[in-house]
């Protein structure tokens, strides 16, 4: 089914679902078969993705503060938050903010795209990369 983008609008027509959109939807919504079937349901391991929870914490607050600190009030259309955070990370990788900044932004970003296939071995890979 093709949908023509509506003219003039910013949103256009329906956009394709990205992985984040799919995860938002299929992992915790839809019919749960357990309620209907007990005998022949096969317990299969599903990789869990802990990426949906939006809980504001001190980390969040500090990140917001830094983004606002860097906000150029005079200029519109400056850098977006992700770029700012990238610069900060590269610029001065010091103390606690390092970890915070790495976890910032689109939480799924390292899951989306080619790296996704490596999820299963993720913990091992990270160890290696850190060395």
């Amino acid at each position, binding site marked *: 089914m093709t949908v023509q983008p*509506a003219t003039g609008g910013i*949103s256009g027509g329906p956009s394709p*679902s990205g992985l984040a959109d799919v995860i938002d*939807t299929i992992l915790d919504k839809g019919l749960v078969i357990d309620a209907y079937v007990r005998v022949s349901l096969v317990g299969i391991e599903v990789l869990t993705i802990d990426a949906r929870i939006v809980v504001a914490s001190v980390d969040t607050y500090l990140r917001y503060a830094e983004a606002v600190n860097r906000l150029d009030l005079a200029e519109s259309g400056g850098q977006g938050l992700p770029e700012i955070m990238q610069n900060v990370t590269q610029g001065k990788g010091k103390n606690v903010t390092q970890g915070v900044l790495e976890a910032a932004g689109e939480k799924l970003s390292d899951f989306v795209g080619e790296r996704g296939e490596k999820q299963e071995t993720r913990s091992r890979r990270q160890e290696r990369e850190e060395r």
Partner: protein
Amino acid sequence: MAQSAEAANAAGQDVPEQVTKTAGVYIYGLVPEDVEVSSDARGVGDETSEIRLVRHGEIAALVSDVTLDRPLGTPDDLFRHGALLDATAAEVPVIPLRFGSVMTNEEAVVEELLTPHHDEFRSALDELEGRAEYVIKGRYVDQTLFREVLSEIPEAAQLREQIQGQPEDLTRNARIRLGELINQAVVAKREADTQAVAEEVGPLATLTVIREPSHEQDAVHVAVLMETDRQDELERVVNEFAERWSERVEMRILGPLAPYDFITARTQE
């Protein structure tokens, strides 16, 4: 897997041991019996597994064979599950199953799922006829969002002045307070903006669900069940918001999707 073998034995089913241990039938969703599956659709788990229908009476299950030797949940798995159901939902009514539903074999699908609940599923599919889910998403443009907060909350602007040019360590408390104020403001804005969108799209929809935000800067996250014929009306409404909130909120519509958000409530009643 040992569990499933035990379960099958407990039920007195004569299932070959090998089958219960290494393979199962993955179920995507339920559709009317008169549906056809396009041959190029591929299943989760194994790239070579083809999607097929297990029919019973007036309903059918969309299934594919799956091996149980690795956990499911790679991006490909998730995409295939979602893509198959959403493509189906664009054409025919479908009851989507949550990701990861696997039964031992086709007989089990028929005897334990389709047969006992035939009428219930049939009537749900009737209700879904001609309808699909659309998800309306809005994401705040951070620069605009922060400017808005600073102009609306004097204390936030003050705190920003205070931390400017100061080392992080010395301004930690001010930073935390500033971030907290911003967060509160975002939560309040999200609630108001989501409400505004839900009120406008509500009349087009059969059912509306306000979804939990899945990102800090989510402005709007609303799912609607509506007639696919009215999609252009939905686009018009969402485009109006996109224009009104230009530079402030990026609006998107996803769909038509399988009615994930509207199935659970229905069957729990």
